[in-house]
């Protein structure tokens, strides 16, 4: 689709959508959001980019192929699931680290659960883009 307006608008929208998708991913544990929704949101960003500028540009902007991203996400999720096993807990158990926790505040909560969700994010993101790009290119 060759439209200057769309292309100009896409530049802004894509970055916003990506930022928003990370926001959705990170807030997911306590508010609506999470890896699945975040991944879909991020994917819509790149789908828009592919429509506006073509899949070739979109692939270049992505740097990695979407297949690699999806499989990498699966690997990250697996690592997050196996990590507790290495320290003697049962697999898939959430491990938490509260950085700078004080009496009144939990500080910065980091957890294997978040890593797992990042894996989900990447799988959904990569999987969706794999299909959309392939379909766009096949037609």
């Amino acid at each position: 689709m060759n439209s200057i307006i769309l292309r100009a608008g896409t530049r802004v929208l894509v970055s916003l959508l990506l930022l928003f998708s990370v926001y959705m991913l990170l807030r997911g544990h306590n508010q609506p959001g999470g890896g699945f929704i975040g991944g879909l949101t991020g994917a819509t960003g790149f789908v828009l980019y592919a429509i506006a500028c073509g899949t070739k540009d979109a692939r270049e902007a992505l740097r990695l192929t979407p297949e690699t991203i999806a499989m990498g996400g699966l690997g990250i999720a697996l690592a997050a699931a196996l990590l507790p096993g290495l320290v003697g807990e049962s697999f898939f158990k959430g491990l938490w680290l509260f950085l700078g926790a004080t009496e009144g505040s939990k500080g910065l909560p980091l957890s294997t659960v978040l890593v797992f969700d990042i894996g989900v994010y990447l799988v959904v993101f990569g999987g969706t883009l794999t299909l959309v790009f392939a379909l766009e290119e096949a037609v």
Partner: protein
Amino acid sequence: MNDRAGARGNGPLGLLPATFALLLFAGFFSLVPTIASGEFVRVSLDWAPSMGIEAAFLVDGLSLTFALLISGIGTLVLLYANTYLAGHAHWGRFALFLVAFMLAMLGLVLADDLILLFIFWELTTLTSYLLIGFSHTTEKGRRSALQALFVTGAGALAFLAGLILLGAAAGTARLSEIVGMGDELRAHALYLPILILLLAGAFTKSAQWPFHFWLPNAMAAPTPVSAFLHSATMVKAGVYLLARMHPALSGTDVWFWTLTIAGAVTAVFASVMSLRQSDLKQALAYTTLMALGTLTLFLGQDSGYAMTAFATFLIVHSLYKAALFLAVGAIDHATGTREIGLLGGLGPVMPITALAAAVAALSMAGFPPFLGFIGKELKYAGALAVASVPVLVAGAVLLSNALMLAVAGIVALRPFWGPAGAMPRKPHEAPWQMLAGPVILAALGALFGIYPALLQTSLVTPTVISLTGSADEVKELKLWAGVNLPLLLSIATYVIGIAMYIWRDPLRRALERAFAQVPVLDREYDRFMAGLAGFARWVSATVQTGRLRDYLRVTFVTALTALAAGMLVAGISPQLDFTGLVGTDAAIAAFIVVGALLAAITRVRVAAIAALGVTGIGSALVFISYGAPDVAITQLLVETLVVVLVAAALLQLPLLDAPGESDHRPADAVLAIGVGGAVTVVMLAVLATPLDRRLSTFFEAASWSEAFGRNIVNVILVDFRALDTFGEIAVVVIATLAARALLVAPRTKAETDVGVQKEAAE
């Protein structure tokens, strides 16, 4: 393969399997004193304790008799095969299969757990499939192997069902406990189904009429296999099962008549067929059927005579039949043929084989002083002890014994002492490895005939105890029991049998004519298999047309049928209740309905997709109004992406209503309304039952305190049920990779041709 190579065998390693079998035999032999004193040995390991399955093994009289036959004959057969197949390219494979089969068979007769029994049962089926199909380069070998697999495999399915029912009825999976529950089981409501299913398994395995046809075909296997599987062991698995179940299930009319009739028909039918054969091995194959029929016949009864006859004949038959099979293999090996008409005058050339065959055949024919004579006397005594129909049973036994005698003459006399025939190779005596089997087995037949007490105390009495529970019923084995009815019947057998042997050629011609009229079950099997393949082709062609619309139709028709059937069975009727319906709900519902109607009516694809989007957004609205923002957001995003995907594919899709195609919409509408209606009814029924809130309560309480999250949906996804989520994302990756492969795959030639034509047209 020359004689020298034959004598050398397959090197020192070639003797390893036989040595292994010999060690097993020695191990079992050392148990004889324990078992003979009336005790038994039980070894048990927990296997799947949560399911009540244990790896339990029991050695009692019955299983020890079988175990000794299996390992003993196995030793001789493996020794024999080492020379018979010397230098064969696949000797290692053969030895592996044969040893695996032997172990499976030993497991089968020793198993004390129903599930364990079934596993070994199936292992014998699989290993025998490999053994029968050892000559897999021939069409006949492949067909025979598959036939044996299908017939016994089908029986095994019924058998498994029977075992499960039996376990449920008895409340235990332990065979040794089930055996003692006879009265309870016979009175149980499931007795008849259990019996039918178990008999189906046993009859197919032991080739009882009308499932007999696979056994003669299975002779496509190398002779050592036939000697082992089809005389002494595998086909006796069914008989073993019947014997094992005898204390628990016998004694009813159904048991008596089914076993008596199937056994008698098989015995007579097989011995008649046996006389008809011109191939030595085929003739022996049918006599094996006769023996199996006779054993089944005796297991139908309860009397001590029948049980003693069973135990004795089981051993007698294994000894002489394996000896004869091995002798026939030696003849085949030496002359290159097994055709009765071509063989003759081998006696002076192969004196030891001839002697062993003669001794075995005399035992088979039932002449004194061989064990076969005692077996035959007991058979008559057992047959006459049948209270209700002694004449019928004794008649069947008499006829089949007389025919046996004739066949014994044909197999063991004619090739050796008849006039010399036109044999393909110049015959020579077999090497010692191939003589050991026939000689030892035939000698045992003679030894036990002269000293029957040896066999009586070591094996026969313990076996009868396994069958009847006490030693009181055991009848004594003796050569001379005085002048009585069995002896008179024996004399009648000799007269009839010798007459049949003398007039065998006219008799065979008469049989040829008679059997031309009888349908051959082997051919019916072919017809059935062809019909099955045709049916499979028809189903594939009907269900898998390659058109997406047809696939969807099949899927939804199946779903609708299942739903409707389920609702009918459960008696669900829809209950509409509109109380509590608020304005927003009604508005959203109307929104969705309009979208659905539009999608169904429109003839423009873009409009249809947009209308579907409307229903999707309507669903998202429902989620929002009921406080599930996560689901709503996902729904909206998916809707968006679907529109993008479909728009990308739109150009390639055919028109909604292709010209020249009948209107499929009315049928689709009926189906769609049916599925929608059924799902609605199910949803209403689900909502009518009170919601179990235990899980919700747990997650509400534990989400923050245990998983440090307030978004329950997300906490469930990434923490409580993370394993499920991991499975799902793995599926997502695999599915997208597969879809991508389909999308970027090079077009097939047909598609490319169409594309080229299109381009040319443009």
